[in-house]
């Protein structure tokens, strides 16, 4: 039986409606328990009507939002193979789920999906979201596979791509805003989508500046003290972008983690007092409330403690991170182990 976009089973419809309401509540509160409620209802809806496309599609999205990105990728890939329904939307969400893998290979798959959406779609809203996703994927791709063997050309290339995509999105947002002012000005993006896209590109720009600051002296051949000062300035710019994103959509766990990481870097580059404590408090809120037990946040807290010189506590954090399965941690075993070794050898350098 082919999948149907809408169901003729009212109970299945009601269950999906309830799930959507839980997703709305999650968007407002960032309470991940709402997503669990949504999953229960979506699974029940799929049982009532196994051919109900929306139930399965939303289930994959909730998986991604809940951090079960591998499951999301599997379900979205399956949907793309089974049905042409909402193919562009599904592909965009597949790109998003791949992006949440954060590894170079996953990011390359995300870039591929977003690029494909941009090639095939004419809808202004979806195009903007795809380009914003692309900016994030390029920015994340700037993190080198090994911290001590960075490919500086690649870092510079992806920084340019990320900032280029960010500029393009801002330009398209302005055009869309102008269109809304002019009668018969063509299709424009609604305000909630515009806010979501704006959040995404501020986050992407913040990440691009932050990761660039890590290797700025090597890339720009400026190894003297001035290089470190410029690293501090760049991180401040990154923080400003991430704070803009925070103002648009507060309490997002991903942006909060980036804020924690940028504050940590500011502490290291500018030696400003209190930055490490502030970074730990930001990351701890993610671990306690925004995404309980999130592996990457635990790992990043360990890094802050290492830079702070609190090696014992740092080692505890890295070990706690390693206890979380790699698939749910968003940071590879290799990176955590490398950081653990650096803490054990009382290495207080960065990156």
């Amino acid at each position, binding site marked *: 039986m082919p999948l149907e976009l*809408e169901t*003729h089973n*009212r109970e299945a*419809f*009601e269950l*999906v*409606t309830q799930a*959507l*309401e839980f*997703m*709305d509540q999650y*968007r407002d509160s960032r309470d991940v328990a709402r997503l669990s409620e949504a999953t229960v209802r979506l699974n029940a809806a799929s049982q009532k009507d196994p051919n109900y496309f*929306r139930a399965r*599609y*939303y289930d994959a*999205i909730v998986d991604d*939002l809940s951090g079960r990105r591998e499951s999301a990728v599997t379900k979205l890939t399956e949907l793309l193979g089974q049905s042409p329904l*909402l193919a562009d*939307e599904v592909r*965009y*969400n597949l790109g998003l789920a791949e992006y949440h893998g954060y590894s170079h290979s996953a990011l390359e798959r995300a870039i591929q999906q977003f690029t494909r959406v941009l090639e095939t779609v004419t*809808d202004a*809203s*979806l195009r903007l*979201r795809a380009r914003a996703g692309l900016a994030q994927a390029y920015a994340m791709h700037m993190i080198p596979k090994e911290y001590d063997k960075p490919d500086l050309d690649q870092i510079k290339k992806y920084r340019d791509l990320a900032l280029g995509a960010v500029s393009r999105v801002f330009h398209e947002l302005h055009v869309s805003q102008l269109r809304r002012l002019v009668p018969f000005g063509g299709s424009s993006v*609604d305000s*909630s*989508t515009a806010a*979501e896209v704006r959040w995404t590109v501020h986050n992407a720009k913040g990440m691009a500046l932050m990761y660039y600051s890590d290797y700025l002296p090597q890339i720009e051949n400026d190894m003297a003290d001035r290089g470190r000062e410029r690293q501090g300035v760049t991180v401040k710019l990154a923080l400003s972008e991430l704070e803009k994103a925070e103002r648009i959509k507060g309490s997002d766990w991903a942006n909060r983690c980036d804020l924690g990481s940028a504050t940590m870097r500011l502490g290291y580059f500018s030696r400003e007092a209190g930055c490490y404590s502030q970074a730990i408090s930001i990351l701890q809120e993610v671990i306690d409330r925004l995404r309980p037990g999130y592996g990457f946040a635990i790992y990043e807290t360990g890094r802050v403690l290492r830079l702070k010189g609190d090696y014992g506590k740092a080692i505890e954090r890295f070990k706690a991170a390693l206890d979380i399965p790699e698939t749910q941690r968003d940071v590879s075993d290799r990176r955590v182990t490398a950081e653990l070794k650096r803490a054990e050898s009382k290495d207080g350098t960065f990156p």
Partner: protein
Amino acid sequence: MSLAFEMKEGVPRRLLLSALMIAGMQLPTNSFAVELAASGTDASASSADQLSIGHAYEQAGRFADAEAAYRRALEIGSPKARVDAITALSNVVQLRSASLLSLARSLEDRGRSGDAESVYLEVLKDGDAEARSVALNALARLSDTGATSAELKAAKALEGAKRWDEAEALYQQVIQSGSMAQKEAALAGIKELAKIRHSFVEEEIGPAWDTFLKALFPTLLVAGLILVVVVPVGLGLKRFYRRRYRARLNIGDFSRTEGDQSPGAAFRETLLLMHDRMSTHFRERTIVGDAGKMPALLDSSRSDVLDLLADVNESLVPFSKWFSKVTQQPGYRVSGWTEATWGNIKVCAKFEHYGKTVRQWTRIYSLYEWFGSEQDLAYEVLISVKEYTDALGA
């Protein structure tokens, strides 16, 4: 070069005449003025034109034509033009009477008593009060001089002109002072007059006709107003609201009578609740992307402002109803009815797009089954609407 040669072809002559008069210019000849006036006696001439035409005839001494022109001005003119027409009319009647009296006297002086009598009778029929009095005296004088029955003739003339009171007075005068034969003729005249005055036509048909005209006029006026104003405005409004509400949905009442309490009568409420639920479901979300939209509802209630006005003035109620009907132009409509017996409920529903039926449902449920199935049917109807509108938008 004479003025007649200067006239350009195609310039309305009556306008030229009016223009000349307004400018205070003397017309070249009376015959030219009459020619101009004669060309402007068509029914389409305005009251101002008619006054000008009347004036031209008056100046040319054609008082009867002038009077006719002033009377036309009186019928079609504005209040001000009517006042002017009345003044001119009374003036021309006086002039005409004076002219006729002068002619009659001249004839009388030449010994042509018969012709003089005819002219006096003419004055008696259409002249002003003073002239009629002079004409009457003259007729009496002619009677004294041997022109017998002039008063009787005058009475007959007045009777013909439907001036019955004056005719009767003359008959009475003849009865008092005339010869026996004249008295008999006068008596017969009075009897005939009484018959006419009390005839069925005068007593029944005349008033009935007047009443009919009085009643018909407002009706014709309203009908004309509807044809000229309401119909085109209604069509324009309908077109505008049809376009404006092309993506709106109206859900009709499923109860058969107002306040119907039978099972199934509240199916409209179930449809409205389901529409609300589905609108929540299909609301645009950035998390899940565009899911298409449910057509928004078009409330069938009338405009609050019009309702308020209708409450203040009852005569606005029909207008309020008409306006409400004209503005309710949803692109999509769900309507139908329910019928309940002791054990069953029959539901008939249809979904229309601009009056064309897209889908129909006829279902019979047992009462027990209905409470579980009502929402299912509401969902089935509305999901059909959603799928149809999505397909149209694709």
